[in-house]
């Protein structure tokens, strides 16, 4: 069963649908034409570029090229995590990279090599979408973990110092904030698993069904991806926070001001 193609005239028809919300927004006095235009244009160009790139990736199916793609994604995710968490890239770049690379490679390799077992483990059709989805979710988790940890620590600096004064090591003193940050990072994934399928059909499953897969197969892949997202988010946020502890404090266990971006 092949998915039906959307031909060019139909594609134009599709864009035409935007005229309806645009008209409604105009009617209620919201002048968003510019934003809408930019949004639709950017989406189209970016996805077209991804399309061209993915097409090449799939046609060549070269292990090195696939690896390079994953590397680039990891680097982009690294920068994006630190920017959104409000930490300075030059201090934490390596730590965050190690954390996400370890967890993504581990969970993707586990899923592809041990569970799915394609003829070639580097098959772009599997590793590209799976690693990408896992990474996307892992990224959210790491932003929450870092942001929450350092903002809570700064808010509770007196409490943290009190713990130090009472004989705690740096690790003992940060542990309550560490636990809270990891919990905040993985909670959305746990909650997502608990309500999966009730509220809406998960994106990947929908895609597979549209792509012609049996619903059962789509369900199994959805479970696989959720377990991998949960695993990699947990591992990455723990490694990331743990590595950052060695960077963010001075030798006297005081949080260094210069590692955090000024708001």
């Amino acid at each position: 069963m092949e998915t039906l193609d959307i031909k060019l005239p139909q594609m134009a028809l599709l864009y035409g649908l935007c005229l309806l919300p645009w008209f409604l927004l105009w009617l209620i006095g919201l002048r968003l034409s510019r934003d809408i235009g930019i949004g639709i244009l950017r989406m189209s160009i970016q996805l077209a570029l991804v399309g061209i790139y993915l097409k090449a990736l799939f046609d060549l199916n070269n292990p090195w090229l696939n690896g390079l793609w994953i590397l680039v994604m990891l680097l982009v995710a690294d920068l994006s995590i630190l920017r959104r968490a409000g930490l300075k890239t030059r201090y934490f770049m390596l730590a965050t990279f190690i954390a996400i690379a370890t967890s993504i490679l581990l969970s993707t390799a586990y899923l592809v090599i041990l569970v799915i077992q394609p003829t070639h483990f580097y098959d772009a059709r599997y590793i590209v979408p799976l690693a990408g989805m896992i990474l996307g979710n892992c990224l959210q988790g790491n932003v929450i973990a870092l942001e929450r940890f350092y903002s809570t620590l700064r808010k509770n600096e007196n409490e943290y110092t009190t713990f130090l004064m009472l004989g705690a090591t740096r690790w003992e003193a940060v542990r309550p904030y560490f636990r809270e940050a990891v919990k905040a990072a993985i909670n959305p994934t746990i909650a997502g698993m608990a309500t999966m399928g009730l509220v809406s059909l998960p994106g990947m499953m929908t895609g597979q069904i549209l792509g012609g897969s049996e619903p059962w197969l789509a369900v199994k892949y959805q479970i696989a991806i959720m377990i991998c997202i949960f695993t990699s988010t947990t591992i990455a946020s723990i490694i990331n926070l743990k590595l950052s502890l060695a960077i963010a404090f001075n030798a006297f266990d005081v949080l260094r001001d210069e590692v955090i971006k000024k708001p």
Partner: protein
Amino acid sequence: MLPIIRFDQVSVTAHGKSILSDVSFALFAGEKAMLCGKSGSGKSSVLRTLLGLHPLKSGTVYFQEQPLTPESVQFIRSCTAYIGQEPILGAESVREALLLPFQFKTHRDHRPTQAQLTEVLQRLQLPEDILNRDSSRISGGEKQRIALARGLLLGKKLYLLDEVTSALDAESKQVVFDVFSDPQLTVLSVAHDPEWMERCGSVYELEAGRLTQVKRNGNS
């Protein structure tokens, strides 16, 4: 006798601003000393510097004649009790707050018995049922006495007090003064209290980060 604390020409800057300049003094075991001066003169910074919370620009801080370094800071902290105006108890109930430091590896083997808890509460004239009270529902003065109790349970000998007497009523003040009349305990305090000043062997005055006046045993 060697001093327990010695500041040797210590200067400290924080955020590009000088907060202590060329501060030198020594404190001997059992001594009670007081730092006074206007707010912002650097009194609390002296205490914080000793605890390694401000990086030194120049000079050396000695604790038992060992210089303050990243290696020695944990030892210094473990010998010292810092009690501020509104100490942070760091736990849900008062009992948990008192036992909090005994979760840490350094103190794990010295967990106090119920009898020791009762004794220290009595010494500070705190009712025994305070143990089960919620940390958020006790007054500033009680918090200070609990922080002090925690220091006593840890067997600390050096107490850094930051504006402690201001939150205490007359009766609790007396209790705290009596505790510190113990010649084994060394106290470095930031205070304005005249009664406390009388009990202090040394009084140092700070102005804009400089030690401007030193009184020893009441004499200038």
